[in-house]
C-alpha cells in the first residue's frame, strides 16, 4: 500500500508505559523497515493513529528526530480511539500515517534563548523540540523550561525533566495548581506564576507555549505584558481533525488549515486568523 493518502502504515508497539495519570507513552516502530528508514519528521508534527476496527485520532509526536528507529507518542485516553489505544499492549500492531503539520520553527530561532512554557500533556510536542535543541546545544542560548499541571500525578516525562535540569545553561521550574497532601515541595500556582521566577532577555528570547487552551491564553497574555514581541511567541492550535491533510475541512480557520499551515503558529499569525482568538463573540 503505497502513496494512498488515507492508508496507514503498520506499526508495532515496542513499549507501552504509564506516563502520568490518564496518559500513556507508546514507542512505535514501522513494520516495514524501508518505510521506517525513510520516515523523517520535525518536532511539532503529528500523525494520525489508527486503531483497527475503531478509528483514527491525531496525536503529536513526542520523540525527537535525533532518536532513530522509533517514534514516541504520548496520549491521554479521552475519546473513543485514544481509550482503545490505551488498551493496546507491547507487541500489538496499530496504524500510523504522517507526519503532518508544519512543525516548530528550528533554524529560524537559532541564536536565541528559548523559553518553554508547558501545561499538562502540552509538554509532549515541546519535548520533541527540547531534545532536538539539546542535541544542537551550541546553536541556542539559555534554555528554560517552565512546566506545570493541576497536581503532581499529571506531570509527564519526569525522567526528561530531571535530565534537562542537570544540563548546562538550562533551568527547569515546576509548579502545580493545587497543593497535594504529601511531599510537594515545589512551587504552587498556575504555570504563569513561574514567569517572574526566571530571568528573561526579552530581545533575544523566543517563547514556545503549549497546553490546555485556557492556559495558553493566559500565558500569552502574561508574555505580552512582559514585552514579548508577537512574532516571538509560538504556540500550537487545536481543532477537531479527521483527515489531517487539509481536505476534510474540520480544522479550517480563515484561509488556513490547522493540519497543513499549523498546528504551530506564532501569536502574530493567530491574531490574523480572526476566529481563533475571539471565540464565541457572536451570540452565546
Amino acid at each position: 500500500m503505497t502513496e494512498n493518502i488515507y492508508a496507514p502504515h503498520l506499526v508495532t508497539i515496542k513499549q507501552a508505559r504509564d506516563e502520568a495519570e490518564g496518559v500513556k507513552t507508546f514507542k512505535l516502530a514501522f513494520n516495514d523497515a524501508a518505510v521506517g528508514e525513510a520516515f523523517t519528521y520535525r518536532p511539532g508534527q503529528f500523525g494520525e493513529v489508527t486503531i483497527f476496527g475503531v478509528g483514527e485520532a491525531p496525536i503529536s509526536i513526542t520523540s525527537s528526530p535525533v532518536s532513530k528507529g522509533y517514534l514516541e507518542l504520548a496520549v491521554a485516553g479521552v475519546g473513543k480511539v485514544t481509550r482503545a489505544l490505551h488498551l493496546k499492549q507491547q507487541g500489538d500492531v496499530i496504524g500510523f500515517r504522517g507526519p503532518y503539520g508544519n512543525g516548530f520553527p528550528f533554524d529560524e530561532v537559532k541564536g536565541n534563548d528559548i523559553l518553554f512554557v508547558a501545561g499538562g500533556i502540552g509538554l509532549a510536542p515541546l519535548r520533541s523540540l527540547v531534545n532536538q535543541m539539546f542535541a544542537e546545544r551550541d546553536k541556542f542560548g539559555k534554555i528554560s523550561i517552565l512546566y506545570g499541571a493541576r497536581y503532581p500525578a499529571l506531570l509527564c516525562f519526569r525522567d526528561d525533566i530531571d535530565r534537562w535540569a542537570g544540563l548546562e545553561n538550562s533551568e527547569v521550574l515546576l509548579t502545580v495548581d493545587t497543593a497535594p497532601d504529601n511531599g510537594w515541595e515545589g512551587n504552587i500556582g498556575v504555570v504563569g506564576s513561574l514567569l517572574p521566577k526566571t530571568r528573561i532577555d526579552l530581545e533575544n528570547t523566543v517563547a514556545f507555549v503549549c497546553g490546555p487552551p485556557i492556559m495558553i491564553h493566559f500565558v500569552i497574555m502574561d508574555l505580552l505584558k512582559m514585552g514579548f514581541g508577537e512574532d516571538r511567541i509560538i504556540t500550537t492550535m487545536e481543532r477537531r481533525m479527521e483527515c489531517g491533510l487539509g481536505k476534510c475541512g474540520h480544522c479550517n480557520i480563515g484561509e488556513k488549515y490547522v493540519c497543513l499551515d499549523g498546528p504551530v503558529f506564532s501569536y502574530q499569525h493567530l491574531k490574523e486568523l480572526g476566529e481563533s482568538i475571539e471565540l464565541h463573540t457572536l451570540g452565546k
Partner: protein
Amino acid sequence: MSEMRILDKAKLAEFIGKLGADFEVIVPRRENGNLVFGSLDHTQPVVEFTGKPLVPPKEYFFPQREELLTFTVKGKEIKVEAHLDKVKRVIWGIRPCDLAGIKTLDTIFLSNYTDNYYQARRENTILMGLNCNEPCSSGFCSPLGTGPFAKDSFDLLFTDLGNRFLIETGSEAGRELVASSADLFAEARDADKAKLKELEEKCKRAFESSLPSTVDLATVSNKLSGAWGDALWTEESETCILCGGCNFICPTCHCFNIEDVPAEQQGVSTRVRYWDSCQLGGFTQMAAENTRRTQAERLRQRVFHKLVYIPDKYNGAVGCTGCGRCIEVCPGEISITNILGRVMRK
C-alpha cells in the same frame, strides 16, 4: 485552440448514446419531475437540456458515502486494501456553475496531498458542459464570473442555439470525441458564432435585472471581512435547523468525515468517507470544547469559507459558483443572496 462544431438537436441522443460503447454515460434525467444526474437509459435515451439539476455532479468525483479502505485483522496480520473507482465516465449537461465547482474541487483535492480517490474518478471522466440561455430561479453566477456561459474546465461545451447545438472543444479528449463522431457534426458558421455571443449577452442582461444587488468577488470579499462581527450573522441564522442541506448540494463544498465501520465478519472494518457539514454543531466538537458554538458562527463560516477563505488560500479560486441551490434547499428560508445584499449595502 478551441474548435467549434454544430450538432443538430435531433442527433444529440445519438451522439451521447454512441459514447455508451466506451463510457458510462451520465446525463440529466427527469424523475417524478425532478431533474437529477443519472445513467443514460440506453433503451430509451432521453437527454434533458433545460433546467438545473437538483444536485451538482460532484458526487461522481466525491460520493456521499465512499469506501476508501478495507482492513482485515487476523491477530498481528493486518491487510489494508484500497477501493479506487476507475470507471470511465462521460457526464453531459454540466451547467457553468457546476463546471466552476469541479474546477475548485480539483484545486482542493489535487493540491497538497493528491486525493487518490478523487483523482482516479476525475482522470477517468470527460466533462461536457451546457451553457445557460436564461437565468435559473435562484442563480447569481453572472456577477461572480462563473456563468451563465463557461470559460474553461470542460472537455466539450454545448450551447443551445435553437434547433442545433454549438460545440466548443476544451481539451484533447474533447477534440478526440468530436473526431470519432465527425459524421454527426457540421462546421460552425459565422452566424452561429454570432448567435453564441448574442445569447450570452442576452442572458447576462437578464441576470442584471433579476438580482437584488450587484455582487462581485473582489468587493464582496472585502465587504465581508468588514462585517465579521456584525449582528447580521445572528439574525440571519435564527431559523437555521442544522440540516446540512446547504453544504450537501453545494458544488464546491468538500468537507467530509471519516469513520472506520465494522463489517459483518470478525476483524474486518471499512474506512468510509461521508459528506459532512460545517453547519452541524458537532463539526468542530472536541473532547474538551466546541470551537464554533453558535449557529451565527457556523453560518458566518460557510459564507466566509466560500467567498473569502477559498479565494485567499487558492489564489482567487472561486468558492461560491452562484448556483443558488443553497437557497432552494433551506428549510429555514436562509438566502445567501440576501446576506450578501445586506453586506454589500453596509
